[in-house]
């Protein structure tokens, strides 16, 4: 009953809009963000992607966004309001929006939804993500080479596969570059909370860490690192402005081309539900220019690693690799399959501590 009524309302709205906008037929594209566009990290980069859609498709599209939407009931409401207001393509850019996207997608079969980093799809719901772990391999290598205390700090958000994958990839490559390296991991249970992220960075520095990596969205840790005179890596965006001396490089999420491609697909009717997972090779993951603090030799090694990953000749998860408890995972030369990576819930051998349960 409610469903029927909502659909009717949606149809009524669609008809009304169709009448008004028949002449121009603009595609309305909506974005729902978990943080503010000014986080200069994750959400910032999605918003750059949104603006790229506007820049490239010009007056054929109209985009809008709602920022800082909590995951859960609020997300469902915002998504519904987007669909009701005539948006035909909606990007939900946080993992926790998953169930909300599927619920709303069921009520609006004519609206296309795209869920970042999720794994549940429907005929009108696609998922997309980037192989951030490829970037993690490169910065892991640099971190291993740059640390003097042999302690690398890692600010982790939530113990979901995406984050665990990043830790593993960074650790494997830091360890290869420097066998004495040790990882200190702090879980902050948030994507965006500058105060908590800064506290975590300070706690790590007190433990003797001199390079910090993060899987959270703000620039707080970068700022702390700059003040403490240690190194850090930009997350999602180039954060050099916030740590001109601290930032060694950054993993930049480059969503623009994907967003433009999907908007075009909706316009020419070729949009299909897909699962996209692209990395350095496809340009979805970009390594920012190195700081001049990184010696030329290390830059060359990092470039070699990056290029090998890009052309497919090297996979960051290549055996021999054991799980944390010592059980074998990948044999010599064996490469992890995407299924295992997508659901990764274990540390590789050498990492200390347990994944929070």
């Amino acid at each position: 009953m409610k469903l029927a009524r909502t659909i009717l309302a949606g149809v009524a709205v669609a008809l009304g809009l169709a009448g008004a906008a028949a002449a121009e037929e603009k595609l309305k594209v909506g974005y729902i963000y978990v943080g503010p566009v000014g986080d200069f990290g994750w959400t910032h980069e999605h918003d750059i992607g949104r603006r790229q859609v506007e820049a490239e498709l010009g007056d054929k599209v109209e985009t809008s966004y709602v920022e800082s939407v909590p995951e859960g009931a609020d997300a469902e409401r915002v998504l519904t309001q987007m669909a009701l207001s005539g948006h035909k393509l909606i990007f939900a850019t946080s993992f926790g929006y998953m169930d909300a996207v599927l619920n709303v997608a069921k009520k609006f079969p004519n609206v296309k939804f795209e869920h970042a980093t999720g794994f549940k799809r429907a005929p009108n719901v696609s998922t997309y993500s980037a192989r951030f772990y490829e970037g993690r391999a490169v910065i892991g290598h640099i971190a291993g080479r740059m640390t003097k205390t042999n302690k690398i700090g890692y600010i982790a958000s939530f113990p979901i596969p995406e984050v665990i994958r990043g830790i593993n990839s960074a650790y494997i490559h830091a360890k290869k570059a420097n066998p004495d390296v040790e990882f200190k991991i702090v879980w902050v249970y948030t994507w965006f909370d500058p105060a908590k992220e800064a506290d975590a960075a300070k706690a790590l520095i007190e433990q003797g860490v001199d390079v910090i990596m993060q899987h959270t969205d703000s620039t707080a840790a970068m700022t702390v690192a700059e003040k403490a005179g240690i190194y850090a890596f930009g997350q999602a965006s180039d954060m050099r402005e916030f740590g001109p001396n601290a930032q060694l490089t950054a993993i930049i999420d480059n969503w623009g081309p994907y967003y433009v491609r999907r908007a075009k697909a909706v316009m020419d009717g070729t949009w299909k539900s897909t699962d996209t997972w692209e990395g350095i090779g496809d340009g979805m993951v970009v390594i920012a220019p190195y700081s001049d603090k990184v010696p030329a030799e290390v830059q060359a090694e990092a470039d070699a690693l990056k290029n090998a990953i890009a052309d497919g000749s090297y996979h960051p998860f290549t055996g021999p690799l054991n799980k944390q408890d010592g059980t074998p995972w990948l044999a010599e030369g064996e490469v992890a399959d995407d299924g295992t990576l997508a659901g990764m819930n274990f540390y590789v051998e050498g990492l200390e501590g347990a994944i929070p349960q």
Partner: protein
Amino acid sequence: MLHLEPRTEPSRRWSVIAPPLAVALTMLAGGALFAALGKNPIEAIRIIFWDPLFSDQFAAYARPQILVKAGPLVLIALGLSLGFRAGVWNIGAEGQYIMGAIAGAAVGLAFYPAEHWAIFPLMILAGGLAGWAWAMIPALLKVRFNTNEILVSLMLVYVAEQLLASMALGALRNPEGGGFPGSRNLQQYPAASNPELIPGTGAHWGVVLALVAVVATHVLLSRHKTGFHIRVAGQSERAARFAGVVPARLVVFCLGVSGALAGLAGLFEVTGPAGQISIDFNVGYGFTAIIVAFLGRLHPIGILLAGLLMALTYIGGELAQLMLGLPAAAISAFQGMLLFFLLAVDVMTNFRIRIRKGRG
């Protein structure tokens, strides 16, 4: 020199016109803010206050959503208002809300996938009890050791948040969820779900309870001896003692009721609109309810109206972001203005402005 002079008696006229005047001032100042951001202020205010209620495009969906959003706010604020009147400051409703949700969901999930009519009532009981028990910690510490309930209740919010994360990752994690955090979705488990009671109204059991609680607290405050004690205790400690108020009993009562109501709000939220225990389950209802309690001047009917108004600004605010591209921070500032002007105008109820010459 401008100078505030206490009134001998609160002004009746000011206490009536203060809330609408505050809303009007907020619209003016907020309009100026929106204009400074380059948006049409009249359109922005129309989208925030009018469209969710009356526009053809959004009202059918937004109206019930206002109830969904206001339900937990009103329920929690009512409980808090009792304590606030008596000078018992429960700042940790957010934690009690989380504990109610965890306990309620845990009871429901323990029976999964059994279907029995008694499961949901048991969950309600567990939710209320857990909220009550969480509030008993600051209550008993205050009664026994004279600790500050503001600090203890607030700190327990962070403890509850950690517990929530651990539940979402561990004990309550959906075994069929592919290792991802978060419990089973209770919306998909009929015996434990809290659906919309009448389709299209948004009203679930939590909204119904909020309305019942409005009446109950009103009766309590105006007709019952405990209500009298609460009012006296807030006005004068000495008078309260003469009236036979036992402060310890009042602390336990006020914290207990507000904890139980917050726990119930959490339970109805997790079984209804939110659907599952997740790491980010709590979105600040427990803190926003403090604003709602004061916006409603600690009066049950006032709280009901304030909760609805607050919910309206949330939903209208989202629409304004969507339709006009207003930043979320502008909406938060707008909500802050509302509280600011209300408190500012409220001063006029108890004080009058005098202009005095010479020495200040």
